């Protein structure tokens, strides 16, 4: 059994603060959308809180972006360019989640410091971090000050269009967050991946120890 330094400090800081911010954004967003149904705090306060949390999310995303742009760990986000290989490995992973895991078969994907995401996981993270999150941040900024960004809002088709896109991505996150947490429990022990995201170290049967890697 080896210890691999899988999650450097900036990634861990970004991950957990992102988790807290995203959950709070979802909660405040739900109250903003369903005023009257959910009244955890006054409307004006919840709007202000949602705005501040949004800016924190943007700032936090820059921690993630700057770290990966300045580190060779960015390779972990490199796409698999061979579609056949990508398809085969994705199917294998889905078969594991849908069948193998019930038979206590080993996970077909073995993580390493430069390849820590399995193929479906990698595609999901790329979709979220490179497409959905930026769109969510941009639409959020537009909705934050509709007067200042009136021309941009009009360009995209109006406030209703911008808000619809913002809500659709929010719905995707509402689906994704509990799913993500559950998938985190599918290690060799339910808490293995959670602990790793605090300590930075994952345990692996394969490869060499990277105790001093960073």
């Amino acid at each position, binding site marked *: 059994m080896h210890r691999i330094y899988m999650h450097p400090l900036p990634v861990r800081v970004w991950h957990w603060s992102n988790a807290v911010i995203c959950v709070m954004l979802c909660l405040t967003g739900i109250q903003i959308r369903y005023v009257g149904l959910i009244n955890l705090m006054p409307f004006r306060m919840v709007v202000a809180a949602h705005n501040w949390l949004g800016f924190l999310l943007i700032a936090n995303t820059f921690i993630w972006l700057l770290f990966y742009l300045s580190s060779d760990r960015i390779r972990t986000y490199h796409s698999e360019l061979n579609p056949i290989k990508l398809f085969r490995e994705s199917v294998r992973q889905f078969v594991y989640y849908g069948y193998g895991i019930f038979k206590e078969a080993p996970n077909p994907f073995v993580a390493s410091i430069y390849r820590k995401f399995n193929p479906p996981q990698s595609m999901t993270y790329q979709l979220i971090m490179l497409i959905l999150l930026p769109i969510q941040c941009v639409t959020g900024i537009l909705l934050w000050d*509709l007067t200042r960004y009136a021309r941009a809002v009009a360009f995209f088709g*109006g406030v209703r269009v911008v808000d619809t896109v913002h809500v*659709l991505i929010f719905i995707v996150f509402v689906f*994704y967050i509990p799913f993500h947490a559950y998938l985190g429990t599918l290690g060799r022990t339910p808490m293995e991946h959670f602990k790793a995201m605090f300590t930075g170290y994952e345990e692996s049967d394969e490869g060499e120890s990277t105790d001093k890697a960073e």
Partner: protein
Amino acid sequence: MAAVAGMTAFASAGTLSKDEQQCLACHGSAGMEKQLASGETLSLHISGDTFAKSVHGAIGCAGCHSDIDPTGHPAANSSIGGKRSFSVARVQVCRGCHSEQFKEWDQSVHAALVSGGNPAAPICTSCHSPHAVIKGSSAAMDTVPCKACHGDIFTAYAASVHGVLRGSGVTQAPLCFSCHGAHGVRVPTAGAGLKNACFGCHTTALAAHRTWLPNTELHFDVVSCPACHAPKAQRRVDLVLYNNTTHKEASEPLGVPEFASRAGSPAARRRGLDPAMLFTLLQALNRSGIEDKTSFKGRLDVRTGVEAHELAPSAEAISDCNTCHRAGADAFQSVTISMAGPGGIPIRYGARKEILNSAFSINSIGGFYAIGGTRITFLDVLLVLALLGGIGAPAVHLTARLAVRRYTNRTRHKQRKG
């Protein structure tokens, strides 16, 4: 008898010149009148005393009646069709001296109504009795002429914060003309509505609202002042057709026939314009070949002119966000669509309130959205499905894993025992 009455008028009109006194010798006779072709009776009696005191007394009779040839007068046989047509034709006389006021009136909604043949639309003499005009008489609550036609609105005004102040002698408090103008009266809902009139006195309104109202400018743009400051009024959303090129309200002749035929179609009138009809209407107005593209811009307003004048003290104004930003809010229960017709007078049709919550309307009314209040119902369904899927699918997977593990452990245990 007429001569005696004339002499009485003559004697009391001391400040009038000889010429005027000559006119009043006949026209000062009470009961002097003329039968018109329409069958109406036109009074020709002028009170010399009142005329002398009026602002027009100084210019004398000939100031306005220069067309009368004293040598051929009285022209008893001259034909006057009817009171209204005679009065409408005579506004040109007023124009001679009051060209600025006439120009303003000519561009007003009142003039547009006159052009449209509305027999009740006001012309100069409707508000200003030409032989009895007293300076300042239109600026007093008791004598302001607007209430002759807009009596119900004036009653609402008189009971409002503005009317109460004015009535108590505060002359800074507005009267009708302060907001609407005296002659250039426009359609109150046109363009920015009367917001600029409000800001004329309430100069710090924007700054004051900014201290507590998020997206203040946007609220000011889409919510009329009375929508919040007349708290007892019923509100409605008016979706106004806008010209995307000029960024102004689309007006005649642009699309009026198309708009009227579709929005006012029997089906739309019967069950209200629904989201699909609105979508089709906009498609038709923006079909290829049409140069000026249009879109709908929403505005939250009160339903009637009377309600627009029921302004309360600012402490009573609506400031609770939840009033509008929640599902089923009163503000979004009534919807109309409109475009500016002749003279800016809105051509307005009722629409179904579902327009505000339909996914079909995302493009049609892309510029109008109130968080919570006009949210799209379809997205609510998607959110519930996402929540069920996001929590339910892992729950099912976890349950299946635990069940399989338990079954496997039990089987292994039995195998070991066996």
